[in-house]
């Protein structure tokens, strides 16, 4: 670990736990410090420090050559990452919002994800594409989208979606250090939260990065009666649902999927073989969402133990709506608890 990084995370007076924004910022800081090939770029990530301040202070610290603003051109941002990687750099581009990842999709799918394959391993793509993602912040159109199903379908990509600050820190460092391309989906709605989610186990701090391998899920609440599976901001909501269910004597396990590609099929099966019931929860529209994949994986891995079909609670098959309708679009606690009830045949 670099002196710069240790200087900020070491044995000083105990600081309050970082928000997710701060945790991500620290991970970027450390990645820039430990490997001079690391580059951070995108729209407004430099002078402004990013619209969510995730890159705050990095340009001042590492200079305009390592952390820089690009023109407003998502395809070029993703495309230049390919050339930079082919020239020995470790690019960490940001796409400013989920909905604006679409213009970059051709470069991500047809180029970044395939260059290692196309070149038979000669041109690896150690690229981490950061995308502030998901909804819940009453934002304008295209600022609340969930693209994980699209990215998870792409051969050659890995896809991460942390749910709390310490894990965001660890997973981002792990992603940047990986020699494979990672699309890193940051739950905007959790940017301002500190520490792990409510009732979550005290996760290890930033000092212990990467102890879970790429692709590992984690049980953030153990339970006996049914398993809730979620990622990003919905993990928090599932933990809340579990608290409410507990008041009624229903003991829910909550699995934070964390990696949306590769998916921890074994971990899912293990949990559901125990609980015999599962509900998968996501913000993206239901149809062809990642919930279908999770449902299929659980059914394949735990069929003989399943007491009820896996339930899916997802956004509706409608374009992500504006302000007042947002809470009616996103999975509510009621919908999650109803789905749990359905697994009990109610």
């Amino acid at each position, binding site marked *: 670990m670099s002196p710069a990084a240790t200087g900020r995370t070491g044995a000083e007076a105990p600081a309050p736990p970082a928000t997710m924004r701060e945790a991500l910022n620290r991970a970027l800081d450390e990645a820039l410090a430990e490997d001079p090939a690391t580059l951070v770029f995108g729209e407004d990530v430099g002078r402004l420090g990013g619209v969510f301040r995730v890159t705050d202070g990095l340009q001042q610290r590492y200079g305009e050559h390592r952390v820089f*603003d690009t023109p407003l051109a*998502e395809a070029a941002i993703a495309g230049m990452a390919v050339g930079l990687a082919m020239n020995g750099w470790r690019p960490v581009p940001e796409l400013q919002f989920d909905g604006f990842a679409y213009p970059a999709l051709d470069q991500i799918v047809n180029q970044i994800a395939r260059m290692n394959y196309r070149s038979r391993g000669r041109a690896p793509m150690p690229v981490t594409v950061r995308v502030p993602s998901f909804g819940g912040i009453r934002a304008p159109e295209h600022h609340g989208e969930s693209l994980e199903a699209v990215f998870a379908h792409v051969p050659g990509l890995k896809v991460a979606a942390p749910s709390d600050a310490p894990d965001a820190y660890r997973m981002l460092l792990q992603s940047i250090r990986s020699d494979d391309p990672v699309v890193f989906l940051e739950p905007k709605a959790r940017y301002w939260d500190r520490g792990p989610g409510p009732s979550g186990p005290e996760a290890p701090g930033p000092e212990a990065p990467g102890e879970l391998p790429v692709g590992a899920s984690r049980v953030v609440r153990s339970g006996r009666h049914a398993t809730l599976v979620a990622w990003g901001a919905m993990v928090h909501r599932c933990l809340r649902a579990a608290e409410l269910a507990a008041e009624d004597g229903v003991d829910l396990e909550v699995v934070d999927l964390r990696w949306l590609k590769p998916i921890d099929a074994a971990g899912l099966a293990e949990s559901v073989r125990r609980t015999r019931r599962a509900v998968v929860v996501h913000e993206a529209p239901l149809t062809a969402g990642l919930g279908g994949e999770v449902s299929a994986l659980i059914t394949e891995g735990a069929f003989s133990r399943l007491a009820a079909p896996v339930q899916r609670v997802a956004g509706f098959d409608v374009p992500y709506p504006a302000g007042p309708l947002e809470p009616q679009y996103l999975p509510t606690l009621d919908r999650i608890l109803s789905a749990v009830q359905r697994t009990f045949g109610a």
Partner: protein
Amino acid sequence: MLTRKPPDARSDDSGAKEPAMSAEGEGGPDPRSRPRLPADLHRRLYRTMLTARLLDTEAVALQRQGVFPAYVSLRGQEAAQVGSAAAMDPQRDFAFPTYREMAVALTLGVDMVGYMASHRALWHGGLYDPMASRFAPINAVVGGPVPHAVGWALGEKLAGRTGCAVSYFGDGASSEGDVHEAMNLAGVMGAPVVFVCQNNRWALSVPNEGQIAGGSVAARAAGYGMPGTAVDGNDLAAVYTAVREALERARSGGGPSLVEALTYRAAPHSTSDDTSRYRDPREEREWAERDPLPRARAALEAAGRADAAFFDRAEAECRAEAERIRDGVSTAPEPPGSDLFTHVFREPTAELARQRRIWQEEVA
């Protein structure tokens, strides 16, 4: 071998980057000071600019009060928006806006409560009727609506009609691939479209220098075989005249043109933005001196077209109008949750009906 030199961004034929102050703002005997707008129109557009300014100010206040979750101010761009929109024929033409064209909407007579509803997050695209208003739904994808304008214009040409599309976009948008594809398409097809780039110097935190290779959006037009014009975007008459010429050309079969209105985003990018992180307040002060609103007023005065009584009445009436819109949007009812499902398809599906039932039972 023939080498093209990069254009001098400040030279005459690529569009002055420092907008030459129009003489209008200064009065005086310079022949260029003669008003280039008919008097009636001049007065009318001044009032539209004033209403836009007052409504913009109300909107910022509404955001502070928590009525709007966020707002994008057009302060400083009133001449560029009102001047360009006033050149349109609202019976025949059609505007394709971004998210910052409030004064265009106002000029075209869009239902402004419905327009501002988008900022109250009642409905992303706004609650006005885009087809009747000839003003497309508010569009938040930078560069995204530019090919729509070309398609609409081409449709007009195919139908043998004489309407023109006006495509609004910013300096930042000029970097997007969609804008290039759209301009090339328009050139190849001879589509009757006017591309109006409001170059307000900033794309969020990135200034022109970090955005526009070569320094001029107007200069790009030559590469598409179309006329490109850079105008002082804070000069109402200059913008109006440039866009009107471009529309006349398009209407008479002369194909597309590009007008770059050099202006300034006087406010932060949005109410969530903090300009102190990236721009020098001196720049803001400099541009405040070129504020298009006082300039339009000075031009009216210099031409003897308006007196104190006119300005007093304008102030009162425009303020009343801005307040009416403010009150209207503040009290507009929230759309019912069932609207989530109503407009997804014209021909409904069983699956969406099923989801609507879930919503009805478990959410509503």
